[in-house]
């Protein structure tokens, strides 16, 4: 009887494990496959199971914690395994790393084929050649030494031969490094800002950094106020801040939109620029997985693991609009599993001016400090604990004060290569006192979320989760009162999503729904279906239909003033979104993404007359809208020292009042957005460690409406030049280089800003 062969696969990617085991099953039914999720896990298994001697070992080259090369070295040290053939594999390969792995004792190097059939063919060949290899070995020693030449170069050639012509065209014949990026084939309009994109811009604050995402509408309403949205619906300014309320914004999993009005107080949201790992910006509904506010988009700011921010780093800035800025960060570790960092930052911004040239007196200063700890005791467990606190003084005589504190903990556990769990909890307090409008608002939020993902029935990846949030606010205002002034709001949610692989690496269907319960409107469903088709590795076409809701905020339901009556029966706003997208990366140098959308909104907030002159207005749900448009973005690696990011967004919309008592200007409370906007970022490395970076933005005209002024179209150019010498870096940044000042939102002009920065890094 034939002995069952055992193949040992070391790969961290669950999808790849699945594809590999399917291909292996097709290549030879009698083969038994054992998995390990990374190098450390594999070595533990080998150490613990002394009888474990696989017939073949396959190791993925790129794995976290211990890469494939180290894993290979360690396996080759183990006496009982030293004769087991080891195959290295990777999605891409360069000849140097192939050669290096061969020298370390790998039999061959496999470039992961793009489809399961090719992989099956390769595995079949390998399994059949087991015996053949031994014969070859004997022949090899018996033949003349001249044969050594051909044999020696053969493995590298074999790897090269598996590459497509396009891949061959990307192999360099001299030594130059490049780092292209590949987005996973997610069926959504996602744009990712990398730490390098962010670092290489003249921006200082978080909302400014968001200007780098071409699928966001970002407008600065004054020195400390911003309005940020995606796919439109930047509501008209009230007290010069925006009513944009259809975006979910998270910083390391912590939701930062304010339940008072469903929007974000951007002056209180900060992240030390050097700590940001990446920002994922999804335009379009994210309601199924994310929270309740993801009607038009999701912004997810992810900071770096403390392991990546070790050492001391200090930065000091001085300039015109940004009058001064300072940051300090220190990272260290206790052992190889426990890393931490602490940081502090401050800035002081000058006032903006009204169009007539007088100061708006909105200068402000902001201080923030925080920490993060990452503890990774094993491959299966990861703990994060982080927190920060901030305070700021704004406007004339510091008449507005803000402060806040938060702490977040997350535990991620990997049960097996097929299943993982993450539990996260946070506590957040924000406080704001606006003296001129006699508004004091304090919000305490506690949140706990659980998420579990596992593979089932070969082709399904199921993700489910549950969450609970409780928040208590105390809002005291003279002009507007909230009825009641204090509220405790509870939010329960559960979601389930199934990612079905209809054809491996070709066709993926994702369906799911979120069910949430809130105190105003009870249960709300947010289902979505997404289909991604990847006909070849270069192209992805995707389509999605989703429904999302914005549950009422305190502003919608509870506000009462001399002219407004509260409306406790305010309904959730709804959107039904249809999306179609295309993503292409013809080669390593270029990637382009196009997303089109058609959204239908129901029950949008409207200003309705009551017929009662004592309380003339009430918020209703009598506005309907549709919007359509597209977002196009691209990355172009022109040379290894010059890269360009670019994007263009077209957005149009139409409103309809559904009740006779709705005020005609009601739509400007919902949406004032440019139809056209374009962005181009140029990132250039000049000789002698000089970085020369530009950001050009064109924002189209925003027409006048009942409650808003016309904002003329503007073009703005930012410049950043930086020189690094060992631990020292000197830089100069100019924002708004080409004009003295311009309007972006509301009535305050944003001036040209010049600042210099000294950085030290040890």
């Amino acid at each position, binding site marked *: 009887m034939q002995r069952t062969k055992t193949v040992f696969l070391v790969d961290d990617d669950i999808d790849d494990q699945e594809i590999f085991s399917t291909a292996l099953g097709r290549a030879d039914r009698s083969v038994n496959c054992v998995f390990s999720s990374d190098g450390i896990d594999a070595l533990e298994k080998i150490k613990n199971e002394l009888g474990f001697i696989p017939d073949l070992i396959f190791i993925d080259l790129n794995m976290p914690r211990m890469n494939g090369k180290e894993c290979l070295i360690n396996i080759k040290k183990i006496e009982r395994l030293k004769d087991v053939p080891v195959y290295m594999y990777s999605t891409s390969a*360069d000849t140097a790393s192939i050669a290096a792995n061969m020298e370390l004792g790998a039999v061959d190097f496999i470039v992961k084929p793009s489809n399961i059939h090719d992989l099956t063919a390769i595995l079949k060949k390998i399994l059949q050649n087991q015996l053949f290899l031994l014969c070859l070995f004997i022949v090899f020693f018996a033949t003349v030494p001249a044969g050594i030449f051909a044999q020696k170069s053969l493995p590298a050639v074999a790897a090269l031969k598996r590459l497509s*012509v396009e891949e061959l065209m990307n192999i360099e014949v001299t030594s130059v490094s490049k780092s292209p990026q590949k987005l996973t084939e997610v069926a959504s309009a996602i744009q990712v800002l990398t730490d390098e994109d962010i670092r290489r811009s003249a921006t200082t604050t978080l909302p400014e950094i968001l200007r780098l995402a071409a699928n966001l509408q970002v407008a600065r309403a004054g020195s400390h106020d911003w309005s940020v949205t995606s796919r439109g619906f930047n509501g008209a300014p009230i007290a010069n801040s925006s009513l944009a309320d259809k975006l979910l914004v998270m910083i390391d999993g912590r939701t930062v939109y304010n339940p008072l009005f469903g929007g974000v107080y951007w002056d209180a949201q900060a992240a030390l620029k050097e700590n940001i790992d990446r920002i994922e910006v999804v335009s379009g509904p994210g309601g199924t997985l994310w929270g309740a506010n993801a009607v038009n988009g999701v912004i997810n700011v992810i900071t770096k693991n403390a392991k990546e921010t070790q050492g001391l780093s200090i930065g000091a800035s001085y300039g015109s609009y940004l009058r001064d800025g300072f940051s300090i960060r220190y990272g260290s570790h206790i052992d190889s599993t426990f890393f931490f960092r602490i940081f502090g930052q401050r800035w002081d911004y000058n006032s903006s001016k009204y169009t007539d040239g007088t100061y708006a007196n909105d200068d402000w200063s902001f201080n923030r400090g925080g920490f993060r700890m990452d503890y990774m005791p094993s491959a299966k467990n990861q703990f994060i604990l982080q927190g920060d606190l901030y305070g700021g003084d704004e406007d004339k005589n510091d008449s507005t004060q803000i402060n806040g504190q938060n702490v977040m903990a997350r535990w991620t556990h990997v049960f097996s290569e097929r299943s993982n769990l993450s539990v996260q909890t946070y506590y957040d307090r924000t406080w704001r006192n606006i003296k001129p409008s006699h508004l004091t608002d304090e919000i305490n939020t506690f949140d706990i979320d659980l998420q579990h993902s596992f593979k089932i029935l070969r082709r399904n990846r199921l993700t489910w989760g549950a969450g609970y949030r409780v928040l208590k606010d105390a809002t005291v205002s003279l002009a507007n009162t909230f009825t009641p002034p204090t509220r405790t709001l509870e939010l329960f949610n559960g979601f389930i999503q199934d990612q079905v692989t209809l054809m491996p690496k070709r066709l993926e269907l994702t369906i799911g729904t979120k069910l949430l319960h809130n105190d105003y409107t009870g249960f709300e469903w947010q289902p979505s279906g997404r289909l991604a088709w990847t006909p070849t590795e270069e192209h992805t076409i995707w389509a999605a239909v989703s429904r999302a809701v914005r549950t009422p905020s305190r502003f919608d339901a509870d506000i009462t003033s001399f002219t407004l009556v509260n409306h406790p029966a305010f309904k959730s706003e709804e959107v039904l979104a249809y999306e179609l997208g295309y993503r292409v990366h013809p080669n390593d140098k270029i990637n382009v993404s196009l997303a089109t959308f058609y959204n239908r909104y129901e029950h949008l907030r409207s200003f309705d007359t009551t017929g009662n002159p004592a309380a003339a207005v009430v918020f209703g749900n009598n506005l309907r809208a549709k919007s359509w448009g597209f977002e196009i973005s691209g990355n172009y690696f022109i040379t290894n020292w010059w890269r360009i990011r670019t994007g263009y967004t077209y957005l149009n919309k139409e409103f309809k009042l559904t009740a006779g008592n709705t005020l005609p200007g009601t739509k400007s409370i919902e949406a004032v957005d440019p139809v056209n906007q374009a962005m181009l970022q140029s990132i250039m490395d000049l000789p002698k460690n000089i970085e020369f970076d530009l950001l050009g933005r064109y924002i189209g005209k925003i027409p006048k409406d009942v409650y808003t002024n016309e904002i003329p179209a503007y073009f703005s150019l930012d410049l950043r030049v930086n020189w690094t010498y060992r631990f020292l870096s000197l830089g100069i940044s100019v924002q708004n280089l080409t004009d003295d000042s311009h309007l972006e939102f509301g009535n305050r002009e944003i001036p040209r800003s010049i600042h210099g920065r000294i950085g030290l890094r040890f």
Partner: protein
Amino acid sequence: MLLLCTTISLRAQSTPEYQLKAVFIYNFTRFVDWPPTAFESYNDDFVIGIIGNDPFGQALEATVEGETIGRHAIRIKRFQDVKQIDHCHILFINSNDPPEIKNIISDLNNRNILTVSDAANFARMGGIIGFFTDKNKIRMQINGDAAKNARLSISSKLLSVAQVL
């Protein structure tokens, strides 16, 4: 967490130029169709010829070893003179002398041979595929008329990644 951006860092290191070109030439066998008249029998050898000094060393041999094209085994032949070329499907012309190149091409007289070279402007001189290097990477120029005259059909996949004249 769920929307991941995987950064694939490729650190491309130096590859011997002719090893890479050998793999390109081998790849051409999959993207070019020869007319049936190019072979004398169904199991006739497929010949890759080199005229002029051989820059490949053992790279071509190593690349095609054990490979077949349909039922045709692949053989590497080295020629000193164009008159020696009796049976050949791909011909690598190693020369930097334009008159010499033009003479070789005209002597081949539109036979069903895929001519390849890394001489400057090879495709403009009537050759079929010319290699050139752009920013350390191998690029191709293809002369569609020359291919048509030699009755070779080149797949659109190859044409799409090359400069077509």
